């Protein structure tokens, strides 16, 4: 059986390859408006008008066949047939940003010279026109000797014509350019410029609003202020906007708990369902609104083109610790989740810089830690008003985020002087045009995130919660015993074992119990504490909320030490796994786990004892 012809989408970064891939295959690849959204190959299926299937691969953007970062190497290997994971494509769709023709054509010329059948997708013609640029695709096709199809991938324009041209290219009857010896970069560059100027019909000065935006966003004073305002609004919104939906979810689970408690007789099943599953999973699901609001902000920032502006503003600061502004993008994404953040470091050219960024990414407070912070802060820190708009709880939250960032900064400084020493590779980045984020892409991104979160809640979080519940429920307390049911259980005994290690930093039995399952997913710390108290309080018959129980059992120094522990320590299993994959071995993940645990232990210890001596 013949495999379907393989067609690869190639082109410069941020030319819109993934948007075109999604439009052609109906896939839901992540798209964004900054160079380097796609860092690995993705494949999908497309059916030509004559019914022939074609396998389409979406490749990371590259500037040339001479790769300077790991993601670009993937692209070079696939199109030259040197990839061990992928056969050589039967044809290429070269995606060009119509507004950046003179630059993107150089890579296109290199690709055409490879001798594979090529179809050019002249993408984002609408934006080029918005910029006052009118192009003649026919001139371009004549000069390049390959078919040229104007497209607007995000608005699905030009797709039929592209499929048609593709049918010709993979049919064998298409125009097959002669393989040519590669000319030098500057000869190619000049040819590219000549072809581009031949294809330009008219050119009027670019519109002004993007200039005006940049004159604020990149302004020496207003730029940084705007960035701080954007980040502040983002974190503020996570806490203020989420209250209503979060309370609704909370009420929903409480109702479910009472319904089940009323419907089932007291016993194993009822306790498993109410104390185990609902108390555990519910405690985590409450945070879905917060996580979605955070993702909403990050998706909008990514889609608008602001990310690279932020990287520009941050470059000087990052250079201070031997990194560059480029590292800012993966680090900001790590506030949502460190796993995609670590994958996004593939766009960083310098190996040592990339490694450093990976190692500090877990210090950005990922969304999975927010439930832990919110719960503890909500229960233990009084919400007094310090000034208009500033309350103590919010301040502590910002403090924790800031400590994580400061910790990352110090860690990068130390790492770059020791284990990841090396020269800086500099900072050079193309700034994308501003674009209005498309509602569909944002909704899709949020929906994908919701599914991931629900899947985690339904699998990892539910499973660890149930295991913990089992460990905490058996063996059953003998009738009339005065010991707490938790202390008597297997889980309780394990907890007491761990407690001896963490007692010096002020942790109690409940925290000791929560630490282990929190490695599976950090949110489990919340559900674990929920489960512990649900079982423990059986005797008193209390159905009080977790927050009230915390207030009764924890001291303030313990709570602060626990928060500090979470700033630094327990990366989840997924983070460790992705670090192993991205660094090709166990050495760096082991190092990362080691240094972060040490930092967590020391910082939590310092916090505890300072708080104790301060008389808190």
């Amino acid at each position, binding site marked *: 059986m013949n495999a379907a012809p393989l067609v690869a989408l190639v082109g410069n970064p941020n030319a819109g390859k993934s948007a075109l891939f999604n439009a052609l295959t109906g896939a839901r690849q992540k798209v964004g408006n900054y160079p380097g959204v796609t860092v690995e190959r993705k494949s999908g299926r497309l059916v030509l008008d004559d019914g022939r299937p074609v396998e389409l691969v979406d490749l990371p953007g590259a*500037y040339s066949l001479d790769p*300077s970062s790991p993601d670009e190497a993937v692209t070079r290997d696939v199109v030259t047939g040197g990839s061990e994971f992928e056969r050589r494509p039967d044809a290429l769709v070269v995606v060009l940003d119509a507004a950046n023709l003179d630059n993107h054509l150089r890579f296109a010329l290199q690709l055409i010279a490879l001798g594979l059948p090529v179809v050019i997708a002249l993408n984002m013609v609408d934006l080029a026109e918005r910029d006052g640029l009118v192009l003649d695709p026919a001139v371009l096709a004549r000069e390049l000797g390959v078919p040229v199809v104007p497209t607007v991938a995000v608005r699905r324009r030009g797709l039929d014509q592209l499929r048609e041209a593709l049918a010709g290219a993979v049919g064998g009857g298409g125009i097959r350019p002669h393989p040519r010896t590669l000319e030098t970069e500057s000869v190619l560059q000049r040819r590219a410029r000549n072809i581009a100027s031949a294809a330009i019909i008219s050119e009027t000065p670019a519109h002004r609003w993007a200039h005006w935006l940049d004159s604020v966003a*990149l302004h020496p004073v207003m730029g*940084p202020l705007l960035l701080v305002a954007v980040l502040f609004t983002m974190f503020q919104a996570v806490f203020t906007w989420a209250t209503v939906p979060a309370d609704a979810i909370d009420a929903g689970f409480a109702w479910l708990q009472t319904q089940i408690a009323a419907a089932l007789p007291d016993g194993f099943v009822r306790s498993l369902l109410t104390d185990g599953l609902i108390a555990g999973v519910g405690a985590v699901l409450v945070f879905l609104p917060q996580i979605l609001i955070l993702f909403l902000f990050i998706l909008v920032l990514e889609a608008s083109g602001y990310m690279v502006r932020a990287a520009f503003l941050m470059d000087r600061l990052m250079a201070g610790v031997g990194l560059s502004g480029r590292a800012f993008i993966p680090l900001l994404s790590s506030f949502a989740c460190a796993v995609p953040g670590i994958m996004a470091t593939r766009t960083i050219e310098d190996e040592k810089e990339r490694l450093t960024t990976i190692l500090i990414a877990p210090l950005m407070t990922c969304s999975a830690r927010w439930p832990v912070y919110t719960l503890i802060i909500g229960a233990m820190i009084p919400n007094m008003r310090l000034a208009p708009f500033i309350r103590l709880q919010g301040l502590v939250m910002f403090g924790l985020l800031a400590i994580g960032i400061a910790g990352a900064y110090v860690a990068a400084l130390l790492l770059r002087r020791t284990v990841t020493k090396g020269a800086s590779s*500099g900072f*050079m980045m*193309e700034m994308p045009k501003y674009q209005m984020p498309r509602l569909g892409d944002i909704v899709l991104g949020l929906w994908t995130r919701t599914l991931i979160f629900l899947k985690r809640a339904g699998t990892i979080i539910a499973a660890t919660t149930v295991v913990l519940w089992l460990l905490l429920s058996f063996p059953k307390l003998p009738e009339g015993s005065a010991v707490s049911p938790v202390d008597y259980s297997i889980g309780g005994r394990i907890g007491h074992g761990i407690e001896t290690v963490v007692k010096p930093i002020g942790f109690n039995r409940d925290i000791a119990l929560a630490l282990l399952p929190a490695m599976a997913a950090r949110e489990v710390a919340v559900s674990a504490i929920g489960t512990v108290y649900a079982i423990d309080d059986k005797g008193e018959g209390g159905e009080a909320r977790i927050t009230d129980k915390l207030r009764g059992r924890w001291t303030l120094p313990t709570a602060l030490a626990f928060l500090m522990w979470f700033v630094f320590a327990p990366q989840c299993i997924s983070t460790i796994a992705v670090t192993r994959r991205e660094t090709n071995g166990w050495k760096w993940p082991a190092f990362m786990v080691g240094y972060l645990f040490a930092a967590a232990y020391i910082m939590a210890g310092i916090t505890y004892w300072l708080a104790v001596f301060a008389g808190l």
Partner: protein
Amino acid sequence: MDMSLPVRAALTLEKLPRRQRGMVAAIDWTQLADAEARRLRELGFDEGVGVEVLHRAAIGRGPIACRIGRMTVALRRAVAGAIHVAVPAA
């Protein structure tokens, strides 16, 4: 000296006043690391291309944003210092 092309000597992109349109006169490749030089070429920096400084980042000696061809590119000052620029005499 050829007076038909008035060139302010020793003006680099690093020193080019904001919003002053210039043209890349020469690039001192020897000042640049291989990777830097390649990326610079890939972004379209070449003799004879129009260039303009749009913004300079504030803190300390931060990077600069410039327009090259139809693209906006951010680069560090050290790299900008290797790019010699010719401007029409005022």
